[in-house]
């Protein structure tokens, strides 16, 4: 499809320029997915969904217009060029606009495409899902694989602009996931979620089913929780939730420029524990968000954010980078906003790719024994209500467990943790050696000291 999609982009750009645009860009994003969904212990449905759309961005003397459609014909590509130009005409001039991206060489990114995935059908998603269900049931009689499934997907990106950017990329992925619940005589576990997501056809559905089920069973063994200041062991799930709504906002170049980042004017300063190094890497082999180019055709790259506790830089898309006289870091994403728009349905905004938190060398046992008297927090609820500007958060912990005398003793319920995400990064005292990807974060488990736990 590469030439068809790229041709369509070029036609839309040509049309916009012909109509008098100063600059123009077109993007085609396509996703084809085959998925199987599990509900209450059985496979319930399969779906085969293809969604491809074209989005046209037009600049007319500093005025910006944008239009998109999921109708992929030459005629509608041209219509979108027209609509975008009309939108630009009715907009005021954006004094911060500099230019669309210029052409650059693209990196070779490893392990983002597997031909075998492209050839899979619902037979495979059904089989993998069934194996995950059985593995969850295998944990015990009171365990329910409540929700889950398997999805395979093929992503295509084509982008062209009037400065000569032309890029096409294709990637694949497969994921099996399971949310399990368990009941004991007196307790209901929270939803306990586990998943594996890969760009290659390498998946272990039994592991997913078992882990979700046993986490749910462990969560029904509820015991007392004490309030106070404690060391906590944060799972990558919990770390990802807390940092997504705070740290990630603080490292976005637009928030820095607009004074909404706690890290403004702090490059070169110590902002985190010395054992912490974080970078954004859109070229990470096999990374869930790795690709040749971002969603305005800028090459993906590795960008240091924190090196041994010292803030080294921020992430940018083309618009904000040019405004502050920097180069885009290849972090243009699209979509979002909670209105259910397709990914191609918005102009670019700054988005992380794979945020890698460099692992340390502590084993699981060493991490737990370092906590000694505290909590292991697998997931948190309510992190999206954090205050990104101050870093303040207050979250409910579920599933979470008490650690006493250097071992995990029981699950806790109705417990909250409050703190400040930026202060929390300064209080990391030990990093696990095994990292996994949850959302954008590729991170190990970490031990943090002095966290405030609120319990009845």
């Amino acid at each position, binding site marked *: 499809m590469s030439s068809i999609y790229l041709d369509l982009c070029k036609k839309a750009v040509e049309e916009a320029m012909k109509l008098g645009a100063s600059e123009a860009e077109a993007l085609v994003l396509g996703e084809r997915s085959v998925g199987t969904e599990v509900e209450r212990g059985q496979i319930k449905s399969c779906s085969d969904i293809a969604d491809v759309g074209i989005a046209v961005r037009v600049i007319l003397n500093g005025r910006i217009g944008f239009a998109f459609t999921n109708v992929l014909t030459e005629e509608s590509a041209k219509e979108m060029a027209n609509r975008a130009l009309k939108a630009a005409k*009715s907009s005021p001039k954006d004094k911060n606009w500099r230019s669309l991206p210029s052409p650059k060489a693209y990196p070779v990114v490893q392990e983002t495409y597997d031909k075998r995935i492209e050839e899979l059908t619902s037979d495979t998603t059904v089989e993998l899902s069934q194996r995950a269900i059985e593995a969850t049931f295998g944990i015990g009689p009171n365990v329910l694989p409540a929700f889950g499934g398997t999805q395979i997907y093929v992503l295509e990106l084509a982008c062209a602009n009037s400065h000569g950017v032309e890029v096409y990329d294709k990637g694949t992925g497969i994921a099996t996931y399971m949310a399990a619940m368990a009941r004991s005589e007196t307790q209901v576990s929270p939803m306990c979620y586990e998943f594996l997501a890969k760009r290659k056809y390498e998946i272990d559905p039994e592991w997913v089913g078992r882990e979700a089920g046993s986490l749910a069973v462990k969560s029904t063994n509820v015991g007392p929780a004490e309030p106070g200041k404690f060391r906590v062991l944060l799972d990558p799930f919990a770390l990802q939730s807390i940092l997504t709504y705070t740290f990630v906002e603080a490292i976005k170049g637009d928030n820095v420029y607009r004074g909404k980042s706690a890290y403004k004017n702090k490059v070169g300063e110590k902002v985190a524990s010395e054992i912490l190094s974080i970078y954004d890497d859109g070229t990470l082999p096999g990374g869930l968000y790795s690709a040749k180019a971002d969603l305005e055709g800028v090459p993906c790259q590795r960008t240091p954010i924190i090196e041994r506790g010292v803030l080294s830089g921020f992430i940018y898309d083309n618009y904000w980078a040019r405004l502050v006289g920097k180069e885009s870091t290849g972090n243009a994403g699209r979509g979002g906003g909670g209105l259910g728009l397709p990914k191609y349905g918005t102009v670019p905004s700054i988005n992380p790719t794979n945020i890698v938190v460099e692992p340390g060398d502590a084993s699981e046992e060493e991490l737990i024994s370092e906590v000694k008297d505290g909590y292991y927090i697998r997931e948190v609820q309510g992190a999206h*209500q954090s205050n990104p500007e101050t870093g303040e958060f207050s979250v409910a912990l579920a599933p979470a467990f008490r650690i006493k005398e250097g071992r995990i003793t029981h699950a806790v319920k109705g417990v909250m943790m409050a703190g400040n995400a930026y202060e929390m990064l300064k209080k990391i005292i030990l990093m696990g050696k095994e990292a996994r990807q949850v959302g954008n974060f590729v991170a190990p488990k970490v031990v943090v000291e002095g966290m405030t736990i609120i319990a009845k």
Partner: protein
Amino acid sequence: MKDVLFSVLSSLTNKGAEYGEIRVEKTNKTLITTRDGLVEAVTSAKEMGAGIRVLVNGAWGFSVSSSLKKEDLKRAAESAFKMARASSRNIKEPVRLAEVKAVEDKVGSLAKKDPTQVEISEKLSNLLEIDRLSFAYDPRIKSVTIRYADISTNEIIATTEGTYIEQKKDYVWNYCWVTGVGNGIMASARDELGTHGYELFDIETPEKISNRVSKRVIQQLEAKTPKGGRFPAVIGTDIVGVLAHEALGHLCEADLTLAGSIIMGKLGQKIASDVVTIYDDALMEEGFGYIKYDDEGVPGRKTILIEKGVLMGLMHNRETAAKMGAEPTGNARAQDFRVPPIIRMRNTCFERGDYSFEELLEGIKFGYYLEAFRGGQANLDGTFTVGVQSAFEIVNGELGEPVRNLGISGNTLETLAKVDACGKDFGLECGRCGKGQSAFVSSGGPHLRVKEITIGGY
């Protein structure tokens, strides 16, 4: 179109499908974002497609076509049929659908002002006015982001059972996020509005919106931080809405109830105090979640969830209704043609009581008045958290000093049992709910008093 859809549907029946449904949509959207007086990009969109869902041997298949040509719809229908067959292989408990009457109807839009007929320049000037007035409100206001959307959809639902419904739906939505700096702290407040037509800005003028949201920011800058612990509280109408929606509502979505939510097996039982009545109503026209028919073609209606403390009913689609021997309630909604309908709320509210605001405060020696929310979340085990953007202390039955950035948490059943009084006022908050898909909803109710709730201090 009608002939084409029924011909595709009859080919599914001929193959042995137990049920088939096609949802065709043609949508126009305008989206605008402004940040600190700059217009980010005016977006114009055209989308169209059909989502086809098929039930074969008790399992579902789903497929999508972005073309509405007969041969493309046929191809998608065949794919959906194949998907359903694949998923039926290991079925233990086949899906059955509750019986409904076939409906033929044509439903017009509720819009008094058609948003597609309003010029982009008028839309822009309203947004830029909110921006300007917010900055003018106080020099401590540092940043204003406004997001606006209007979405106009023509939708057709046709089923193998003979239902054929055409609906025109309009949504106009406006969201502001305002940040201020002062006293060495930063604070933000949000404001979200939605109606079914462009009359939104006649009711909620730019002045009203900017004053409301800016006032909340400034109030937080001057506020103190809360004490952590358990306190009595009076809860404002929009947080009451969050409790109705997040803390209780999701537990009463029958798919989540069946997945083992904390209220499973409690139908007919007393799960809340006597003063608590909660409902989910499809037909409140002022609600952002108004629907005449849901996306399975089932008429929307009012569903009583809790009446005087007793759990009376759940929110169903045809599948869960059949499974639990209940009537379908018209709660099946799909974000768009790209996804199948799932159980969603519409307008979820606490019923009014007869207390005045002053009477609710009476007798509280020390507690909190929780006025407006930042966001909320809940788990099926009944734990919930609500972030609060505007709050005051209550001291000796009267409102005291403002408090900033506090969070509340609790267990739904414990909290509902501790509601001891409901106000006689009523507020309705418009918003979006995410459950894998996005849906426009409303929630609300009167002011409430709870004997005790956990306040999380920062």
